[in-house]
């Protein structure tokens, strides 16, 4: 009665490959090859802590190529180590693709992966068991870039120090990420974000003790490029239509996905199938893209990163049903507090607040809206702890909100039916 692991594995790898190639081609379409190369070099050399928009640093074309290359590299990694591709794999690869628009690049992610690999060797376990910690753990990549390109001193020393810190960060992530799950009980989907926030806070405290004072900054391009918007509409619609076609034009599986609360770990691909999952991914991408356009937000590296993370996590927890109440909470926050929905950190909060989707999925839309409202304030004030070196700052804030809110809700809410 078990579903077979790895069923249609090739099809899933092909899907990820096609999306990567689309990103690469679109990037190459936007700029000359020499411009792309120069842009990629700028991206690599830039300290990447929050918020660093690669549209500004390297240009739109180079940002898409950087994202496509990383997506392709990690898809090849999935294929090479012959692991089965699950919804979790979609989430990890899309999240990497997203954050490759504002912090992860083809040079800085590998040290974290190497650290997790080293941990696996020390534990005498296969790397595949820690694969997803490695993939999501690349959230700490800016720390590598900061030491390599943000500090002064001989380049060889900076290269070695940056690499060593990256490996050390990757090395401590597996045991920490597992332990942190019990803090928020799986109600914060970006668990590595919470873990990386904690790790980054400790690391930055040490940095500060040695006199390094990180400057906060916001490098953020404004406006909406119609070509980029059109590309994303076609991409998300294409993902939806692929799933719709695979399901023989039926919405039955999608309804089943929407009935699930989405708490970690709810793998829609394993539980319901690839077709409905792709439909869910496409729909959520379109909903949140529409939201950005309606509020007059910006379509740049960070917001595209947010959209791709939503699309990815729509394979393991996010649905329209459980994300919209949380978004509503953030909008409510915008109407009642001192910040506006178009402020850059708030645009990001509106996208990444969906990390708390399981709260709405498990306890209803009011709980979800309260979570979103709290998140919108918390996320604006916790980044200072890790100085923006944890790219998943919303995952950090989401973990705090979930840990604070869920025990209270559980104490008074009616239990969900089995």
């Amino acid at each position: 009665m078990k579903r077979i692991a790895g069923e249609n594995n090739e099809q899933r790898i092909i899907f990820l490959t096609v999306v990567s190639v689309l990103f690469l081609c679109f990037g190459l379409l936007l700029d000359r090859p020499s411009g792309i190369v120069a842009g990629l070099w700028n991206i690599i050399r830039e300290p990447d802590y929050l918020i660093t928009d690669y549209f500004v640093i390297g240009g739109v074309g180079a940002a898409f190529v950087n994202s496509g290359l990383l997506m392709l590299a990690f898809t090849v990694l999935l294929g090479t180590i012959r692991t089965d591709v699950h919804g979790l794999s979609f989430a990890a690869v899309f999240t990497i693709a997203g954050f490759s628009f504002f912090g992860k690049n083809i040079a800085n992610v590998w040290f974290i992966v190497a650290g997790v690999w080293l941990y696996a060797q020390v534990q005498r376990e296969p790397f595949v068991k820690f694969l997803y910690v490695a993939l999501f753990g690349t959230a700490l990549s800016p720390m590598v870039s900061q030491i390599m390109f943000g500090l002064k001193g001989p380049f060889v020393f900076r290269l070695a120090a940056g690499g060593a810190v990256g490996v050390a960060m990757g090395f401590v992530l597996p045991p920490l990420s597992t332990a942190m799950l019990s803090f928020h009980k799986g109600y914060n989907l970006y668990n590595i974000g919470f873990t990386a926030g904690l790790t980054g806070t400790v690391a930055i405290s040490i940095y500060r003790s040695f006199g390094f004072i990180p400057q906060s900054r916001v490098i953020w391009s404004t406006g909406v490029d119609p070509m980029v918007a059109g590309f994303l509409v076609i991409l998300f619609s294409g993902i939806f239509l692929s799933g719709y076609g695979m399901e023989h034009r039926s919405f039955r599986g999608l309804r089943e996905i929407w009935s699930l609360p989405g708490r970690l770990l709810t793998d829609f691909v394993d539980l319901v199938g690839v077709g409905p999952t792709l439909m869910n991914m496409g729909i959520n991408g379109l909903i949140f893209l529409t939201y950005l356009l309606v509020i007059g937000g910006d379509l740049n590296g960070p917001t595209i990163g947010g959209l791709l993370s939503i699309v990815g996590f729509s394979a393991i927890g996010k649905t329209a049903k459980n994300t919209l109440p949380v978004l509503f909470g953030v909008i409510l926050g915008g109407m009642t507090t001192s910040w506006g929905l178009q402020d850059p950190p708030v645009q990001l909060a509106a996208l990444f607040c969906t990390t708390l989707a399981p709260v709405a999925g498990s306890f209803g839309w009011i709980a979800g809206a309260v979570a979103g409202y709290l998140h919108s304030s918390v996320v604006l004030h916790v980044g200072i702890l890790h100085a923006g070196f944890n790219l998943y700052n919303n995952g950090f804030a989401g973990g705090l909100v979930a840990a604070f809110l869920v025990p209270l809700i559980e104490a008074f809410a009616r239990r969900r039916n089995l």
Partner: protein
Amino acid sequence: MKHHGLLLSRLTGELVAWCLTGGATDVDATIRRLPKAWEIFVSAVFPEGSRPAVERLSRLLSSPRSAGTDEYYWNLYGSDDAVFQLGLVGAMTDEADVRFDEETGRLTIRLLRAD
């Protein structure tokens, strides 16, 4: 895996908690070592009208084994009794057999986790 004993006990505990929250009585759980696997056996008597919940359980346990979840997500078991981790139980076991006798209300779950 370093915490294998803890994982097995929590995985079994997740199923036992699910049964008790669903109103089951006379719940029994056994964990047994087989030559190349661990067998988990849970038996419980459920009140009338439990078939939809059992069907849902069966669907969630049919989730295929996922190697990348063991080390990372095992700590989620037992953390919550509002939403259970049945899909994760499925992802960490190689075989699942769920049987339900509607007349007696007896549910039996047999899981195998290969080495």
